[in-house]
C-alpha cells in the first residue's frame, strides 16, 4: 500500500473526485430545492439526459458554450414544467410522474440523437480548463484544485447560491416552509403551488445543468443514457445529506471519491478486490446511510404529498 498512496495519487484522486462529483452536485442540490418544497422528483435522471442532449445539440450547431448551457437549463426547466403540471396542478402521484419523466428523457434524447447525429460522430468543444496563473502550477494543490473548468468551479457557486437562497432570502424561507407546513404558508398569504413550481423549476434546471456538465464540461460527446444512473445517485445524495445543500455538496464529493478511487485502485494490480465491489460501494453506502439517518427530523414532512386547500 505504501507505494499506492503517494502525494501524486492523492492529488489526482482529489482532482478526479471533484470532477466526478460535479454533475451530482448540480443534480442533488436541485433536488434539495424540490424536496425541501415537498416535491419528490425521481425523474431527475431523465431531466439530466435532456440537459445533456440539449446542451450538446446547441453547441454542436452554434458552437457557443454559453448558449449550450442556457439551452440545457431551459431543457431541464421544460421538463420541470411538465413534471409540475402533473404533480402540482393535477396533483398526480409524484413517483408515477417521475417514472414517466425518466422514460421520456431517455427515449426522447436517444430518439433525437439517433435521428440527427447518428452518423456524425463529431464531438463538440468542451469548456476549457481555467488555468489560474500561479495556482495551477503549484505542486499537489494545483492538480487537485486549480486545473478545472468553469463548470467544476461552478459547483462552488451553486452550493453558495443554494445556501444563500434557501437560508437568506424570503423565497428560500417560504420554500422550506412549504415542504414542512404548507398550510402555514397558505395562511401567511403565499401560494403553495407557485412555490412548488418554483422549487421544481430550480431543481430541474440544475439537473439539466448537471446533465450538460457531462456533454459540455467533461467529455464532448453525447451517448444514449450518458447520465449512467447519476440522477438516481443524486436522489440518494439528498437523503444522505439530510436535505442540506452543503451536505449535498460534500456527499456528492464523497460519492465522487468512491468513483475516483474505484477507477484508480483498479490500476493497482497489488489489490485483488473485484472492481465490481468498488462499483457497488456508493449504493451500499446509501443504504447504510438510510439506516443511520434513522432519526429523520430533517425529512420534509410533506414530501410527496400534494397540497389541497381548505
Amino acid at each position, binding site marked *: 500500500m505504501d507505494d499506492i498512496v503517494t502525494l*501524486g*495519487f492523492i*492529488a*489526482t*484522486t482529489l*482532482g*478526479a473526485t471533484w*470532477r*466526478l462529483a460535479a*454533475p451530482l452536485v448540480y443534480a442533488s442540490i436541485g433536488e434539495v430545492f424540490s424536496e425541501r418544497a415537498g416535491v419528490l422528483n425521481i425523474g431527475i435522471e431523465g431531466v439530466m439526459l435532456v440537459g445533456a442532449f440539449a446542451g450538446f445539440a446547441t453547441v454542436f450547431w452554434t458552437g457557443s458554450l454559453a448558449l449550450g448551457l442556457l439551452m440545457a437549463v431551459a431543457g431541464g426547466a421544460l421538463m420541470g414544467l411538465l413534471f409540475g403540471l402533473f404533480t402540482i396542478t393535477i396533483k398526480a402521484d409524484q413517483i408515477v410522474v417521475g417514472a414517466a419523466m425518466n422514460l421520456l428523457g431517455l427515449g426522447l434524447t*436517444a430518439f433525437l*440523437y*439517433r*435521428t*440527427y*447525429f*447518428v*452518423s456524425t*460522430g463529431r*464531438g463538440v468543444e*468542451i469548456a476549457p*480548463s481555467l488555468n489560474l496563473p500561479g495556482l495551477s502550477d503549484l505542486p499537489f494543490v494545483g*492538480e487537485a484544485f486549480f486545473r478545472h473548468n468553469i463548470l467544476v468551479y461552478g459547483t462552488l457557486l451553486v452550493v453558495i447560491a443554494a445556501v444563500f437562497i434557501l437560508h437568506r432570502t424570503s423565497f428560500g424561507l417560504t420554500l422550506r416552509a412549504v415542504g414542512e407546513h404548507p398550510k402555514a404558508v397558505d395562511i401567511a398569504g403565499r401560494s403553495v403551488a407557485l412555490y412548488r413550481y418554483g422549487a421544481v423549476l430550480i431543481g430541474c434546471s440544475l439537473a439539466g445543468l448537471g446533465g450538460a456538465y*457531462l456533454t459540455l464540461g*467533461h*467529455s*464532448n*460527446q453525447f*451517448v*444514449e*443514457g*450518458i447520465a*449512467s444512473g447519476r440522477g438516481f445517485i443524486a436522489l440518494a445524495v439528498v437523503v444522505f445529506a439530510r436535505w442540506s445543500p452543503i451536505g449535498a455538496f460534500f456527499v456528492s464529493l464523497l460519492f465522487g471519491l468512491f*468513483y*475516483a478511487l474505484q*477507477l*484508480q485502485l*483498479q*490500476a*493497482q*494490480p497489488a489489490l485483488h478486490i473485484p*472492481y*465490481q465491489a468498488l*462499483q457497488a460501494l456508493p449504493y451500499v453506502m446509501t443504504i447504510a446511510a438510510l439506516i443511520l439517518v434513522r432519526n429523520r427530523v430533517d425529512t420534509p414532512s410533506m414530501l410527496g404529498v400534494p397540497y389541497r386547500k381548505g
Partner: protein
Amino acid sequence: MNLTRRACLAGAAGLLLAGISASAMAQDGEFKMGLLVPGSVSEEGWNRIGYNALKGVEEQLGAKVSYVELQQNPASFEKAFRDYASQGFNVILGHGFEFQDAALTVAPEFPDTTFLISSSYIHEDNVIGLNTDTSQPFYLMGYIAAKMGKKAGLVGGMEIPPIQQAFEGFVNGAKGANPAFEVNQVYIGNFTDISAAKEAALGMIAQGADFVVPNASGATVGGYQAIAESGPDVKTFSIFSDFTEVAPKNILGLYVADYAQGVVRIVKGIMEGQRPESNVDFGLADADVMKFTLSDEAAHPVPEELRKEIEDVKAKIAAGEIVTRQK
C-alpha cells in the same frame, strides 16, 4: 441528414411490402444481409464497426441491408435472427459472441442462410465465427510502449473477450520487448460512461503511465480526451476509429480493423456460393482487414529503428512465429 432519412423512408416503404409478403421478396433473387448489434450504432466503437461492415456489403456488393439494435438483451437475439432469416436474408451477422447461442438454435431451421458471429470461433454448418485477433495489433502497441515509455495503462469498458484479448496481446507485446515493463488495466464497467473512461485514463497518467490505450466502445473517446489534455508526452494509439482529431500530438499510430473488408470478402464468397470451411480469424496476415500504420504527426513519433523492428515483429506474427495470446 435529410437525404439519409428519406432513404430510410424509401426503405420503409419498400419493406412495408416485405413485411407483408416476405416470401415473395425472398424469391426475387436479391441478396440481403442483416445485422444484429448489442447496442447503439450511434456510438463510435464496437457497434459502429459492425454497422460499417454492413454498409461495406451494401456499397461494395450491392446487397440489401438492414440492422437491428438489441440493447444487449439476450432474450431478443433469437427472434431477431429468425425475423431476418424468415424474411429471406441470406447472411445475418450477429455482432458479438453473445449471439452465438441464439444463432446455433435458429440456424438448423434455415440451412440456406449463413449466420456470421463476430468475436467467435464457432464453426457449425451455417454458423461461422469471425474474429479479428486484436491481440496482434495490441501486441505491437505493447511492444512499442515498452520500448518508448515508462509505464502503460489500458482502459477497458467491460471485461469481455474482445477487450481481454486485446489487453492480453498488449501485455505480451510489452513483455516481449521488456519483461520488466509495467502495464495496468482498469475496467469502467460499462460502454457509455465517457466521463469514467476519461477519469480512469487521467488517473493512470497521474500515476506515471505515459502510454495509455483506451478500449471501451462508445466511452473510448473519453480516454483520448484525457490523453490529449495531459500533454504531448503521453502516447497512445488510435484504435478501431481514427481519433487523430481528438489527440493529434499523442497518437503514434492507427490500428483500424477494417472489419468491413473482411466481412465483405466473406460475404462475397457466400454470394458466390462458397461458405467458409472453418471459423475465420483475421490477423495481421490479412492486410486488407487489419491495418496498423504509424503516424508522423505525433510529438514523439516512433523512431526509425523501432519502426524496422516493428515491421519484423509484424511479419513474425503474420507468419505465426510469434503467438500474441493463448488460444
